[in-house]
């Protein structure tokens, strides 16, 4: 029972991160029908920038409280990633909007590799420790333990999700985004500046990715140039699980995938009689992805897509 609750908590924390990254995929896909392969790397860049900025701050202002250092690091990461997302869309995706589908997809893969290697050149191949500036107290819930960082992750995720739901449903930008997702040409006729909406989508998605990157590195205590790959892949799986293009779906899919992975890793040994161990944790996301795509391609919350001829 203790293990179950502990794995549930771990799963929800992990799932929060997946959900935030999944939102970036799902929003871009909803509007451009493009899998932004580089999104995982944008997330990684967020983690790297945050860790680097925090290191600098601690050197420059050793008296600054840890929480402030972390917040400033987060702020720097979010701004850097928003700028990055904006530039990627402008320079690499926009010129190819009319090209055959394969072209932007291949470009996205190229960007992804480019970012990975740029990060490696700047920060090296080693794991970079997340500075130990945040409180490390552990609290007990029903026999399972949860850290302050994990509580902060869960809380911040909730706030961000609520904010995003408000933005999409209650603001004029949100309305414009939904209109563009329905039909670019119609939205344009209605006076929506489609390019602006697409840019805004990349800005928001990249910002969310940055937050997720900082969260995941704070939780595991480290950042690495290659961390974006697997994270991105899993977050995409989460977006598909929830129904790609659907914002609530990405949130649900992310949390669900985190829990599935966590419980799966905890129990796979018992389930297979010891044949498979927790090293297969990473397989779950793909298994979920493939099962969803085969049996319910529209995802949990996605509408059954209208056939197009």
């Amino acid at each position, binding site marked *: 029972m203790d293990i179950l609750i502990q794995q549930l908590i771990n799963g929800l924390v992990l799932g929060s991160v997946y959900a935030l990254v999944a939102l970036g995929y799902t929003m871009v896909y909803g509007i451009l029908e493009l899998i932004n392969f580089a999104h995982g790397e944008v997330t990684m860049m967020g983690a790297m920038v945050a860790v680097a900025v925090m290191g600098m701050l601690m050197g420059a202002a050793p008296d600054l409280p840890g929480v402030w250092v972390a917040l400033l690091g987060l702020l720097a990461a979010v701004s850097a990633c928003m700028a990055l997302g904006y530039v990627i869309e402008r320079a690499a995706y926009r010129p190819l909007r009319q090209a055959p589908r394969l072209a932007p997809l291949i470009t996205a893969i190229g960007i992804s590799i480019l970012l990975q290697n740029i990060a490696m050149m700047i920060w090296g191949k080693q794991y970079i420790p997340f500075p130990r500036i945040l409180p490390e107290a552990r609290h007990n819930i029903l026999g399972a333990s949860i850290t302050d960082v994990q509580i902060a992750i869960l809380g911040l995720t909730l706030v961000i999700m609520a904010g995003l739901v408000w933005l999409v449903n209650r603001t004029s930008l949100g309305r414009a985004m939904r209109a563009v997702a329905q039909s670019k040409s119609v939205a344009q006729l209605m006076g929506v500046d489609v390019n602006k909406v697409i840019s805004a989508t990349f800005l928001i998605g990249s910002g969310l990715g940055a937050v997720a990157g900082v969260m995941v590195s704070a939780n595991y205590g480290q950042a690495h140039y290659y961390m974006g790959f697997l994270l991105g892949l899993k977050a995409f799986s989460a977006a598909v699980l929830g129904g790609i293009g659907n914002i609530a779906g990405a949130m649900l899919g992310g949390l669900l995938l985190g829990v599935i992975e966590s419980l799966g890793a905890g129990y796979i040994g018992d389930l297979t009689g010891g044949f498979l161990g927790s090293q297969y944790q990473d397989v779950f996301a793909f298994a979920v992805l493939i099962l969803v795509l085969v049996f319910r391609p529209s995802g949990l919350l996605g*509408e059954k897509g*209208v*056939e197009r*001829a």
Partner: protein
Amino acid sequence: MALLEVSNISKVFGGLKALSDVSFTLGRGEIFGVIGPNGAGKTTLFNALTGLYTPDSGEIRLDGTHLFRRKPHEILKAGLARTFQNIRLFHDMSALENVMVGRHARTSSGVLGAVLRSARTRAEEADSRERGQALLSRVGIERHSQVLARHLAYGDQRRLEIARALATEPKLLALDEPAAGMNSTEKQSLRELLLSLRQDGLSLMLIEHDVKLVMGTCDRLMVLDYGEKIAEGLPVEIRANSKVIAAYLGAEVA
């Protein structure tokens, strides 16, 4: 016996009835027109018949073969070929290659035959090429056989689509607005082509907006409005049908 028998075919999109209980029959050697205002469900009907949409209910029989909910390639093989309203050619293939793709269902050589270039494969290829050329001549674009489909003039693209569909040796050819974007000379020669195809024993089903062309070419007509059949009969009967007039006037007012 009728060539095509369609009974009570329905298709719902997200609560909206795009087709409701449409039934009709099409005789051998007949040119059958489907008309109706925009959004009446004409193309949806074509898509449902040719397997691009899965109809929700109903029955479709072509020459006695059940086609309800069959895959597009199975329907084509049974003898129902089509063209598209928004021209769907293989743009980076030459005109001849496009028509040769149309031979796919009537040929059978596979990987091994292609790699070994067996006598049977070579004969089949030669035959496809020959028939392809003949069909390009038939529709009047033989001089463009090596031109990429995307570089053909609009009217020629429409003709190529017909040639490609003919290459599949259909019993029934369904044409979705074949005259769209054509000038009156082109329309005239299209009409002659359709009549000569019928002469050769082909049955045709035609969606068309050009009233003159439809009335002058079709033996019988069916009128759809909001996914329902509101009339069926000879061109003269349709012209005088009050429901049809109301549907068209309503559409114009709106």
